[in-house]
């Protein structure tokens, strides 16, 4: 059975026999709220490099996504870590924020995001309403 952690502020990492399955960390928006961009990226990559699937309730901002790609690239190492697979729902064209939402800072980055090791997660289908992925053990 996958082990699920809620990330409720407790920094301890539940220990489990991860050899029996794939661990899934579901990280709430509240948990990410007080973190800097680099802390968020570190939290994600540390989990993914351990072979975990990380699910973010609220996703990352475009700038953070850009930095995540950049940092991921610097950490890729032959036979150790080949990068990440990341999936979010595509942005709906009907939900594009207007000028005033953006000026007032009301633009939301909320989008459920799934991130995993590139060699363990394969996207089977993705549309605006559904992400279907195949996750394998290391």
């Amino acid at each position, binding site marked *: 059975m996958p082990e699920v952690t809620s990330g409720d502020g407790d920094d301890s990492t539940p220990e489990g026999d991860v050899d029996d399955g794939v661990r899934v960390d579901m990280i709430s928006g509240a948990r990410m709220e007080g973190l800097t961009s680099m802390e968020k990226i570190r939290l994600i990559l540390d989990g993914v490099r351990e072979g975990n699937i990380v699910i973010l309730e609220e996703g990352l*901002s*475009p*700038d953070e*996504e*850009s*930095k995540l*790609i*950049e*940092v*991921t*690239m*610097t950490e*890729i190492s*032959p036979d150790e870590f*080949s*990068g*990440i*697979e*990341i*999936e*979010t729902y*595509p*942005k709906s*064209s009907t939900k*594009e924020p*207007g*000028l*005033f939402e953006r000026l007032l800072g009301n633009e939301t980055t909320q989008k459920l995001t799934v991130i995993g090791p*590139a*060699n363990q997660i394969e*996207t089977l289908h*993705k*549309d605006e309403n559904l992400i279907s992925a195949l996750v394998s053990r290391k």
Partner: protein
Amino acid sequence: MGLLTSLKDSITRVTDGLFASGEPKRIGIYGPPNAGKTTLANRIARDWTGDAVGPESHIPHETRRARRKEGVTIERDGKEVTIDIVDTPGVTTKVDYEEFLEHDMEKEDAVRRSREATEGVAEAMHWLREDVDGVIYVLDSTEDPFTQVNTMLIGIIESQELPVLILANKIDKEESDIQRIANAFPQHETIPLSALEGQNMDEVYAKIAEYFA
């Protein structure tokens, strides 16, 4: 919504005008691996300066360093723009050296190539945040455009408020589907072309002059 979009476009154009100067605009050519970015960069550079930017290849990540061709002046329909073309490595979230082994490469070469590719992608992302004035986003029109990398990259470009021109490349191929790209990014205009065959380059140059002048 339509009014707000028009207002936003107007403000963007006015802001762009305020920052316009005689300096060449640095235009990054971005897109996924094997979309034809270097073929396009070479086509533009050869058409307007007679020189090429870099070697082209069907092997992914042939371009592993951002390459620049400076001072390319493009003139169309009375509009003129001088740009520095920045041909960037194909953006991806993963690089596995074993993929290069499929192209008859020795392991040592494949590992070196993958290391250079990762450095190149990191550099390209940094350029996108710091050092480009506009983006030409190149997509292979025979491939599904609804990928995470495309979604993220277009989102990043939009968040930087950079002018972006989306090009549907490889229209010379039978499987080409321009409408699929137009549907994926309806907020942007999609220009079809074949950089390899030189098809529809007149419209591409007209749009470059219009968007980046």
